[in-house]
């Protein structure tokens, strides 16, 4: 495992953030994602566990964490990468890990991230949704519901505006 980590470090300039029991956290440049995933799949990381997105308002970025599992090495690799909030775009890894396709579709719907090369980014949970991506930190759902579904003039619904 150590050899593999040092290879990723030297080959792609990845930064090791922390090491835990059976888990390694690293940070990479978003341009290297495809190459790193290809490299990892060839080296035993054949399970795609999960994809998390975190909206970080103060840095104006969306952070993506790819969680990969290697049955052979019994290790989870958490690969972090950042994309800009203004233009949330990143290459899809669904051609390397088929299981990531559905995770990317979910993140696309809830965070508005565009995964270039993903075959299907159609709506998943939400139906006829026209508002902004609902899981972003600056989306105030209370405000949205008030504007869209309630009426200030209605006696029964006045309470929602206090």
């Amino acid at each position, binding site marked *: 495992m150590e050899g593999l980590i040092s290879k990723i470090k030297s080959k792609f300039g990845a930064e090791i953030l922390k090491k835990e029991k*059976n*888990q390694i*956290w690293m940070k990479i440049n978003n341009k290297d994602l495809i190459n790193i995933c290809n490299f990892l799949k060839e080296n035993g990381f*054949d*399970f*795609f*566990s*999960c994809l*998390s*997105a*975190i*909206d970080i308002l103060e840095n104006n970025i969306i952070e993506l*964490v790819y*969680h990969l*599992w290697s*049955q052979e090495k*019994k290790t*989870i690799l*958490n690969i972090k990468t950042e994309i800009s909030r203004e233009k949330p775009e990143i290459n899809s890894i669904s051609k390397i*890990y*088929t*299981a990531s*396709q*559905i995770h990317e579709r*979910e993140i696309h719907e*809830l965070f508005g991230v565009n995964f270039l090369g993903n075959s299907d980014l159609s709506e*998943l*949970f*939400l*139906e006829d949704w026209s508002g902004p991506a*609902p*899981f972003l930190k600056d989306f105030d*759902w209370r405000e949205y519901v008030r504007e869209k579904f309630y009426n200030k003039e209605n006696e029964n619904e006045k309470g929602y505006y206090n």
Partner: protein
Amino acid sequence: MKTKKDTIINNSKNEYQEFLFGPAHPGSGNFSVKIKLGGEKVVLAKSDPGYLHRGFEKLMEYRNIWQNAALSDRICVFEPLAWNLLFAEAIEKLAEIDIPEKAKYVRVILIELSRIQSHLIWFGAFSSASGFDTGFKIALGYRDYILDIFSIITGGRVYPTGFICPGGLRRDLPAKIEDKILKVLDKVNEAIFYFEKEDPVFKSRTENIGVLKIDDAIRLGATGQVLRASGFLQDIRKDDPYEIYKKIDFNIPVLKQGDAYSRFKLGILEVKESIKIIKQLLDKIPNGDFLNKNIKIGMPFILPKNEAYVRNETARGEGAIYIKGDGTINPYRVKIKGPSFLHLIPVLEFLLKEAEIADIPIIYWSLNGCPADMDR
């Protein structure tokens, strides 16, 4: 004699029909699949989730850990304790909280009981989907014995309301509960006796139906018993042990065929292993605290600026939580990965292609899916 193949109406005129399996169909739960039929064969299947999307990940950003612990029950209706444990473990890893040895034992006993009752609901629903209604009644009847135990220990029959909480457990075990659990395990053995019987009708309805090959299973992200029924040995309890699974002697059953019948058979073997685990632990529960002394239940708890990723083997497969703290009492972000998210979307769509219309409920229920943990 007419074979099964002769009886299928073929689509000679290339006419297609579209219909929905669910969400109001009694066999589907709160979930639907859009199906395109040519004759009696499925040409295209597209999962349509979202009927149970409650936005837990967003809700958790507005609540403190004690509120979230109770909320985490609702992630999966069939096995709330498993998600209780996952959330507690996520907070413990994030804030580096140690938990007492006694809590670890009780947690594993509860989780294995939860696995058994979850499998029993599954056996029931699966029997019902294959036209074997008595199986449904047997399974749900025997499941109630386990719910009684949950009611005594946690206070809730189905939902424990955050009984497994960050730092340990909310309450101590009641006195003489070990004997009661042993009696319930005998009852579970009775239920298993019924389900183990070879039923030729059930077998003919499920054998060689919905075959998932090992490569496809890995590629599509299958975990848990769906992956193991296809012949791949993977169990987080062994591979990446949590709580006290390292100390326990148990086997991981694996079957090779990958069809609906072997997924069902594997479930029975798993229940037997769970019984073995619980029996090993019952007389070994140590004395002492059940909650970390520094943790005060209900008091605001500041989450450190850190992040953690935890995975558990739930009854359905790999469940995982990613959590990030930002120095406030509410988590900054929680990501929940339910096993059914992959089983009911990519795997189900793949298996339904080219299937017969009559096999749709069989394939659907053989995956042991839970729409609640898929939609969150």
